[in-house]
């Protein structure tokens, strides 16, 4: 900046300078002419001679101008040209440096591009900072995020705090009418949803935010993907109808392809259809204050309101409502509403993992820099004579340092460019590595900000690794430098020390990475060995969905008695498949590790004899299964009996509970025969007492890392599950099983979609993708770091060996044994490695504390990992030292001494 300023100032003064220059040159010529005249030339002749001797004034003026204005730029161009010439002269060195930097900068930029797309960008909606997630908690009964009820929603709407409030429901819906019934993800939103987000469809219009229809408005918006896939991108799509779960809807708009809902899971973000409803008429239940069936809600704060202000006004509103409706909000449950910035809730815990990854990749880059600095130092040594000569010929120290720095930065920039080129080439491959569960608010791409980042990082890296040699060049002793012939090793003490320090720090840095990777690897290994409580091998779950029409009277699966025949028929047919040993049906919640929060079906636990009010009761989760389920999944029955085929709507309602639930609520062990109060399926508002008939072992349903929560199972014939999963165990062909099952299911009811076949092995593996991603990335970085450190120590030991060749020669001549020489060299390498490892260990202990959240079953300071990695490390260091050490023992004493 300062330079630009002075440049401008010089341009303004330019005319003045120019005139003076002209004056000065003219005056010179006149003086010369005067002198020539004095020695006898005619005036005319003297003038001519003076001009001739002077040469072209314009040329010199130009040279002066260059000195004045273009100095920095000129020298930069000159240095660059010179540097490029140097690179061409030592292609091996250049290649190593460029490759190292390409790796480091490329990897750092790749991680940054993910961070750029997620953390750094704001949500792609209008004034995203005004958007919040609204969460209801009942801390008094230990329940969080319990959802909101329709009256509460209305209260929030009218509170004056929000411009809009939108509950979001949804799931899957059957799209029929085309050749094959399709299962699509849809969201049920109020008409104000798109006005709240501030986004417009690419075709047509969105819902009217003032629409007060209590039930479904029968208007839908579809995604660009669905429009292209199911409707062939029909430009006349607006106003056409489609059939969803038996009801006809009118398409009023098509959303742009880059629109994603601000929700957490990949499935939710890939919504294909939006239907508007007021949530106050069937199929929604009656709008009762304490029926919190709206599981998620977002809001847009009124302009100018901060989240803190809104929260304090909301707290006041909550207090007033509690006073007004004491029956609905018992003091004991301590009902409260929390506002979370929408971005935070969308990103979830991704923030920490990404920062962690970024730190790891930054370390790799730093290690790369240290390595290159080491290489440059070695080369500076070889170039010492060149530098001395240039100093002798008038190059100032600053000028030479500038030249060295230009070289470094140029190397780094070339490396960075190479890294970007690799990144561009490997883009598709790398994007596939990114877990689908990562919320991509914006598409990950190599954007301008990513390019800028790569450029700045290259500059910085070049500056860092160029500093060492530039500083080293401070004090070359000209005379001694020039006197030395051939042997380039001078002022080596200081340089040797710097290089050793660099290697030690390189080792320390890579050890930190190795230990982090080791801890992640162990966590992952432990997770893989967790007993999930079910047997995932040879088991597959295929999904189907029974449509829910808006009018309950047209629902052909409206009661357990209506649905049971379908389930029994599906089971009967599935068991006839060749190779299939067992079949069972459940709802999606019964598929372990594969469901999102919406499928969990929480119920307040009300135990006969200790009846607590509904909203003060602890919450337990449930799933629905047929009797075959427990045997098929190999979940052992611990006490009581399992379900029987006869547990249908004619029999008294029964449930089985898991061990955790038995232990938590009946610690004395007599849970069997107890009764709990649960809503009756298909009869709104009705409740019945369900008898606990058995206790089964725990299953890790949420994630392998989480111990089981209290959970119970319904008998499928007593409920009417809509989101079905058909479980098959045996030998099946993964590729054709879904089609085979579809054929059978659709021959029973041709409106039913059959989709989402997933083996339970895959479900287990997919539940680990994010952890696997972190582990693989950090592992990869750690390997690179180890490799770089090995190269670094190899370089330094080689240098030490070449430096001490004469000494070794003398030792050998005096009778030293070769293995002694080997030991000397190895020992100096080992010293470096141990010093680096010691520092690295201390730092790793501090760093690993921050890793606790990423670990599973492994203490942050895990002795096995720490010692194992350190040993591996020192072994690698010794191997890297062995080659130069071997060379040291091959020194020919005669040659070594003659060179002295």
């Amino acid at each position, binding site marked *: 900046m300062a330079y630009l300023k002075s440049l401008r100032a010089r341009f303004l003064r330019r005319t003045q300078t120019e005139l*003076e*220059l002209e*004056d*000065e*040159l003219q*005056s*010179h010529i*006149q*003086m*010369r002419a*005067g002198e020539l005249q004095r020695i006898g030339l005619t005036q005319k002749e003297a003038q001519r001679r003076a001009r001739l*001797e*002077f*040469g*072209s*004034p314009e*040329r*010199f003026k130009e*040279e*002066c101008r*260059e*000195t*004045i204005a273009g*100095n920095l730029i000129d020298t930069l161009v000159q240095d660059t040209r010179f540097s490029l010439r140097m690179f061409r002269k030592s292609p091996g060195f250049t290649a190593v440096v460029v490759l190292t930097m390409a790796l480091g900068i490329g990897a750092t930029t790749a991680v940054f591009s993910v961070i750029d797309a997620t953390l750094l960008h704001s949500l792609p909606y209008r004034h995203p900072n005004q958007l919040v997630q609204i969460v209801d908690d009942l801390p008094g009964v230990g329940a969080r995020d319990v959802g909101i009820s329709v009256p509460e929603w209305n209260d929030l709407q009218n509170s004056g705090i929000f411009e809009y409030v939108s509950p979001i429901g949804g799931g899957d819906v059957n799209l029929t009418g085309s050749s094959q019934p399709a299962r699509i993800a849809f969201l049920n939103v109020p008409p104000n949803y798109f006005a709240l987000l501030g986004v417009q469809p690419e075709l047509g219009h969105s819902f009217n935010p003032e629409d007060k229809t209590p039930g479904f408005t029968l208007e839908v918006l579809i995604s660009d993907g669905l429009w292209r896939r199911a409707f062939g991108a029909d430009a006349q799509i607006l106003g056409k109808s489609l059939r969803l779960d038996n009801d006809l809807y009118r398409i009023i708009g098509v959303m742009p392809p880059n629109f994603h809902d601000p929700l957490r899971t990949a499935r939710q973000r890939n919504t294909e259809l939006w239907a508007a409803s007021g949530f106050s008429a069937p199929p929604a239940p009656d709008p009762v204050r304490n029926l919190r069936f709206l599981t998620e809600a977002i809001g847009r704060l009124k302009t100018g309101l901060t989240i803190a202000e809104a929260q304090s006004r909301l707290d006041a509103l909550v207090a007033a409502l509690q006073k007004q409706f004491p029956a609905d909000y018992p003091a004991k449950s301590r009902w409260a509403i929390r506002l979370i910035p929408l971005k935070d809730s969308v990103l979830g815990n991704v923030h920490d993992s990404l920062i962690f990854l970024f730190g790891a990749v930054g370390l790799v880059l730093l290690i790369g820099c240290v390595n290159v600095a080491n290489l440059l130092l070695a080369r500076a040594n070889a170039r010492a004579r060149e530098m001395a000569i240039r*100093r*002798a*010929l*008038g*190059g100032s120290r600053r000028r030479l340092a500038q030249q060295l720095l230009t070289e470094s930065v140029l190397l780094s920039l070339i490396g960075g460019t190479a890294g970007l080129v690799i990144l561009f080439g490997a883009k598709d491959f790398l994007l596939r590595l990114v877990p689908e569960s990562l919320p991509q608010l914006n598409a990950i791409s190599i954007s301008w900000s990513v390019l800028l980042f790569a450029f700045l990082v290259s500059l910085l890296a070049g500056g860092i690794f160029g500093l060492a040699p530039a500083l080293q060049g401070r004090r070359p002793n*000209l*005379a001694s430098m*020039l*006197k030395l012939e051939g042997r380039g090793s001078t002022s080596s003490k200081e340089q040797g020390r710097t290089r050793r320090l660099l290697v030690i720090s390189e080792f320390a840095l890579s050890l930190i990475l190795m230990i982090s990777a080791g801890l992640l690897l162990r966590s992952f290994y432990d997770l893989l060995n967790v007993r999930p409580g079910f047997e995932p091998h040879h088991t597959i779950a295929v999904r189907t969905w029974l449509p829910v029409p808006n009018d309950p009277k047209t629902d052909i699966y409206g009661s357990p008695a209506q649905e049971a025949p379908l389930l029994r028929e599906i089971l009967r047919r599935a068991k006839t498949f060749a190779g299939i040993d067992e079949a069972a049906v459940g709802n999606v919640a019964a598929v372990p590790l594969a469901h999102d929060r919406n499928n969990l079906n929480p119920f307040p636990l009300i135990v006969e004899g200790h009846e607590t009010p509904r909203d003060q009761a602890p919450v337990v989760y449930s799933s629905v299964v047929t009797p075959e389920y427990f045997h098929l999944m190999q979940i052992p029955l611990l006490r009581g009996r399992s379900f029987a085929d006869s547990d249908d709507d004619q029999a008294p309602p029964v449930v089985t509970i898991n061990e955790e639930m038995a232990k938590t609520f009946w610690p004395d062990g007599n849970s069997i025969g107890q009764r709990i109060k649960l809503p009756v399926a298909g009869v709104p508002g009705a409740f019945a007492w369900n008898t606990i008939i058995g206790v089964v072992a725990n299953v890790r349903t949420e994630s392998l890392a989480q111990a089981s929560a209290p959970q119970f199972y319904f008998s499928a014939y007593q409920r009417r599950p809509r989101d079905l999963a058909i479980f098959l165990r045996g030998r099946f062909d993964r590729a054709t099983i879904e089609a085979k099952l579809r054929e059978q299911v659709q021959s029973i009811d041709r409106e039913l979609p059959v989709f989402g076949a997933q083996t339970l092995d895959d479900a287990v593996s997919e539940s680990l993708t994010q952890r696997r991603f972190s582990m693989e990335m950090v592992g990869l970085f750690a390997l690179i770091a180890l490799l770089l450190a090995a190269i670094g120590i190899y370089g330094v030991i080689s240098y030490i060996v070449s430096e001490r060749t004469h000494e070794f020669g003398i030792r050998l001549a005096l009778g030293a044994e070769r293995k002694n020489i080997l030991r000397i060299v190895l020992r100096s390498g080992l010293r470096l490695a141990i010093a680096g490892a010691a520092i690295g260990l201390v730092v790793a202990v501090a760093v690993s504390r921050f890793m606790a959240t990423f670990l599973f079953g492994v203490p942050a300071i895990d002795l096995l990992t720490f010692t194992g990695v350190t040993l591996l490390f020192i072994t690698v260091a010794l191997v890297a030292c062995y080659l130069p050490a071997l060379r040291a023992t091959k020194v020919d004493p005669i040659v070594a001494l003659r060179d002295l």
Partner: protein
Amino acid sequence: MNDEAELLPGTLDLLILKAVSLGPLHGYAVLSRIEQISGRTLFVEQGALYPALFRLVRQGLLKTEWGKSENNRRAKFYELTAAGRKRLREETDGWNRLVAAITSALSAKPQQA
């Protein structure tokens, strides 16, 4: 022509500093002084002097002032700054070392193998 030595690159600056160190001079006089103190063996291309002068001024080694020449002509006078004096000392030392080193290198006799 034969007794004129070719100017080594980089040495012009040193010569200018030396010439000016004996008192403020204008451009033409700098040339004459260099010829004079080098025993008329070193000749500088007249125009080439000015870019060098400019450079030294920019490096803060010389300062300038407009004044009158001996025959009353308006002329720009160059004078050493403190930094220039220091630089002259350093460069002189460096040069002497270089010459010594090169001289000793050139006077080395072929070694008996």
